[in-house]
């Protein structure tokens, strides 16, 4: 799958509106509203997005929100911590399912 993702593809994201313009417009409007300053600052929202980008492993999002985080004034310490938060939740989410494993094992075991 080498070369499956290309940086130059990201500007074509809006092509997704070509066959479903209403859905694209709704998505765009919602997306922009989500990232506008509100109870959280734009910088904080970018750090959340950066963490989520790593959790969902979206290369486009990692590119975009690394740059966006820098542009909003975040530093590498803060960005690294955001990735750790996402990774901890990902790792923790796997580990916590160990409870299910233990429940099943307990049920079927003597």
């Amino acid at each position, binding site marked *: 799958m080498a070369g499956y993702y290309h940086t130059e593809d990201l500007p074509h994201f809006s092509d997704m509106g070509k066959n479903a313009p209403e859905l694209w417009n709704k998505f765009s409007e919602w997306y922009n509203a989500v990232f506008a*300053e509100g109870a959280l600052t734009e910088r904080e929202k970018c750090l959340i997005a950066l963490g989520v980008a790593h959790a969902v492993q979206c290369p486009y999002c990692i590119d975009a929100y690394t*740059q966006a985080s820098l*542009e*909003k*004034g975040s*530093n*590498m310490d803060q960005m690294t911590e955001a990735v750790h938060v996402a990774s901890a939740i990902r790792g923790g989410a796997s580990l916590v399912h160990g409870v299910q494993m233990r429940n099943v094992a307990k049920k079927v075991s003597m």
Partner: protein
Amino acid sequence: MLEQRHPLASATEQLRILENGSSRLQRFSDALRSSKQYPLRATGVEVLQVNVGKLCNQTCRHCHVDAGPDRREVMTQETAELCIAALEKTAIPTLDITGGAPELAPVFRYLVEQARARGRHVIDRCNLTILLVPSQSDLAGFLAANRMEVIASLPYFLADRTDAQRGEGVFDKSIEAIRLLNSLGYGDPETGLKLNLVYNPVGAFLPPAQHAVEADFRRELDRRYGVRFNSLYTITNLPISRFLEFLLDSGNYEAYMEKLVEAYNPTAAEGVMCRTMVSVGWDGTLYDCDFNQMLELPVQPGNPRHIRDFTLEPLAAREIITGQHCYGCTAGAGSSCGGTTI
């Protein structure tokens, strides 16, 4: 770059790259036309910005002046007197002194004292570390005694990013210099001695919203180092000189230019600094701004083009020379020597 005989030490080469770059990028003049702002014109002269020379105690990686300890260009006393004469025959309220490290120029204190004697507001564009150079031990006191506004570069509130741009150890010295200024009353709203800091991105990206990063700086500089300042100005790096070299060497040039062009903001263009200032070079040549000065683009022919010929009226309504580099001042919330333009 000059010492290394780097091709980009030549303004002509920089302009060749900027003006003959990607054909996909809209010309700056066309961007102005599309927002009905072409030709861009001055609306007055509120600031006389004087660049007294390229000598500096630092060699910053982004410096648009290509300044450093090896530079020898410096303003003469005769040219400095012509700058004061220009102030004398006008009511221009502000003298803005820049460099290099302007304090190293022999004419620096003359300019300050003469402008202050005429009741003008005087700004020192200070790199902070100059305040700790042994030969400048009385500089901080001089700035305070003359009630100068200090506009000082501090690209970030952490050492690693600041030093990556401005040189190893610069951050710690900068904090020490801010402490010195604070001890004299700078940064205290009660004293009226203004210390304004300048944030500029340490890389190929745009600056954050000024109000947002100012709050971060105020909190972190107080919490970590116990120092204070009045305002924070965010400035976009213009794609010229050493920053242009960085963009080209790192493969970021095209993407950065596209970013600037996409972020073109007519409202920011309305407030660009060149519309209300005249920039004077170390040799007395007149320019629209410090960036045009470094690209060796003097004011339009037909205007006074040397400080000895300074006449306010034509310059106050002159047509401004623009180019692709001007996108740096019109991106997003805009960029100027006083921060955002909207």
